[in-house]
């Protein structure tokens, strides 16, 4: 059946056979998404626990190593993610109100912020790699190891925590690009915007993780 169009000109969505109606599907998917968020919290948990444990054991070394991090870039990234969370909310509201242009506009802002975050991350990583500050056994910045023998461990944790987070940001950008295509084809209207809502939740979660990562890694040092 060709894409039949509903009243406001958005593509008709038919809920799967085992759901009573669109609302039933929407709230079931949302329930499933929250369960996915729950699983994500526990997925990040071991890294945070490892960080707390080693910060407690090697306090000075971690203080010294953390001091080398550039907190300004961290702050910029925090602001970027907060703005992107905001634009995602505006995108969802736009879809709920059937304002397709607003939706597309905000999706583009979000993707821009996402790339911005990755670029800042790339700058940070390259500066670290430049002066040999690498995780674990790869560390070859003798001065740093001289001053803080546990610096390799700190940077292992730093690269893994921010790396895993950056991976989630990249996945987010991919999803928003897919949503942008759907928006262009007017598939996300007031009657059906589930993928947008769920990706929004995912994105806010990614922002949430960074809200905790930023002070833990960059500031408390």
């Amino acid at each position, binding site marked *: 059946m060709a894409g039949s169009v509903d009243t406001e000109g958005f593509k008709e969505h038919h809920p799967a056979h085992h759901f009573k109606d669109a609302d039933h599907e929407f*709230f079931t998917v949302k329930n499933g998404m929250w369960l996915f968020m729950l*699983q994500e919290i526990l997925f990040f*948990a071991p890294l945070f626990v490892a960080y707390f444990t080693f910060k407690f054991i090697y306090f000075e070394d971690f203080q010294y190593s953390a001091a080398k991090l550039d907190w300004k870039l961290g702050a910029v990234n925090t602001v970027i993610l907060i703005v992107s969370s905001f634009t995602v909310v505006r995108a969802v509201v736009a879809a709920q109100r059937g304002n397709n242009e607003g939706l597309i506009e905000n999706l583009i802002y979000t993707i821009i912020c996402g790339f911005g975050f990755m670029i800042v991350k790339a700058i940070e990583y390259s500066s670290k790699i430049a002066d040999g500050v690498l995780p*674990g056994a790869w560390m070859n910045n003798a001065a740093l190891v001289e001053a803080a023998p546990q610096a*390799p461990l700190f940077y*292992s*944790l730093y690269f893994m925590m921010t790396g895993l987070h950056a991976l989630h940001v990249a996945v987010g950008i991919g999803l928003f690009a897919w949503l942008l295509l759907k928006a262009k084809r007017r598939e996300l209207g007031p009657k059906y915007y589930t993928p947008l809502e769920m990706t929004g939740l995912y994105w806010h979660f990614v922002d949430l993780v960074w809200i905790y990562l930023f002070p833990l890694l960059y500031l408390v040092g």
Partner: protein
Amino acid sequence: MHHSPEGTTYLNYPKGLMSWLVTLDHKRIGMMYLASVLFFFFVGGVFALTIRLELFTPEQNLLTADQYNQAFTYHGVIMVFLVIIPMIPAAIGNFVLPLMLGAKDVAFPRMNLASYYIFVAASVMAVATMFFGGVDTGWTFYTPYSTQTQTATTLMLCAAFVAGFSSIFTGLNFMATVHKLRAPGQGWGQLPLFVWAIYATSVIQVLATPVLGLTLALVALERVAGVGIFDPALGGDPVLFQHFFWFYSHPAVYIMILPAMGVINEVIPVFSRKPIFGYKAMAAAIFGIALVAFAVWGHHMFTSGQTALVNMLFSLITMFVAVPTGIKVFSWIATMYKGSIHFDAPMIYAFAFLFVFVIGGLTGVVLATLGADIHFHDTYYVVAHFHYVMVGGTLFGFMAGLHYWWPKFFGKMFNSFLAKLSAVLILIGFNVTFFPQFILGIQGMPRRYWSYIPEFTALNQLSTIGSFVIALGFFLALGYLTHSFFFGKKAGSNPWRALTLEWESESPPPLENFRFDPVVTHGPYEFKGERV
């Protein structure tokens, strides 16, 4: 999906292999899981028999040290990740849960199929390690050994990582299903206890498995990039790995036992023609076990150098797991009181479950006792304990469930006498295999030894003989079940006269589960009289 033609079942409509490989139907996915799980169960069993054969004599005669280490590693990994975790939830649960809820399918059918193919990918990777040098770390992957050994451990870590996601997706799917797809009139109080058990298992799967995923990824990173978190030379701490690993692995043992309890909760009332004793307490007990399970993992680490204070805390909290378990066992026995007990195959397996699981549970309390565990840790006492609760508990629970729902799966009955015979054979073989291991444990025979001091010879030989009796029992079961699959006598839609929703549909059910809209009018166990 429109209604399937009259008289067709999920097995023969829609037709063709492709319709099976890309099916979204929870019943077909359940059967595919069942086939995969049974296949890996026999593969794991072969490794178990090889180990028992090697241990027949103190000296090394069948396998070299490395081969033996790989044998018990594969026995462990296959049995844990590829058999006993998906066994009841994914195989039987996938089929039965939506039917019990009167739903047409699970909440996210595509995720359900993805979960199965992730499971297949994980098993292919796990088996592939055999051709890249095998794995000899044990299923626990303790560092620093797992980060140093030159075997194909990195590939196995990826396999277990991937298998974790299959488990998470199944858990997530079932929780959403129970939340949102219950039949009208079916509140939380009307849910069959099997649904409660599967729900609690899914909670653990969603909450604990991610931690395993990341932990194994960290070990793989340690092997590949030397990040140093678990490597003492680089400042890391191996005990930290044990904390991470057991934070998942203890709840994982409840992922294994809770579904079995769920099955027994269904079987005993139906074959005693009496409602389950203390439904509310039983549901609360299931959920209680699932929650306390998260705060007890340290009892695996009493001798690892964990501080005395934390040892004490973990020992204390582990005691509280025994209370709900006790409630359940006593309630099962109370259910039989003044009932009318039918000794069909599922009930025989339920009796076998009760007999073996109680011994397993009580020795668990012994191991939770801080002072006692110092002697018993990592000896054959522990091996006997977890086989009593895993093989005795989960496997007998699975067999009870398999026989109980077999008519609903395939619409055919099995040879009842042979079923009871195989159950008895397995029960005897099981006890001959694992009860001597309790004594070996008291005498101090350590785990994972490929050769032992001659004092332990007699008991090990007895244990090896028992293991072959178990194998005999399972081959017998394979025989009559295969026969029943092809030539079994037709079974009606409700051969056991049970009252849960799945028995109101046909056997085997049509593609859309019910040819009418099921409504729940009575509790799951309101047995009013004799089996009519």
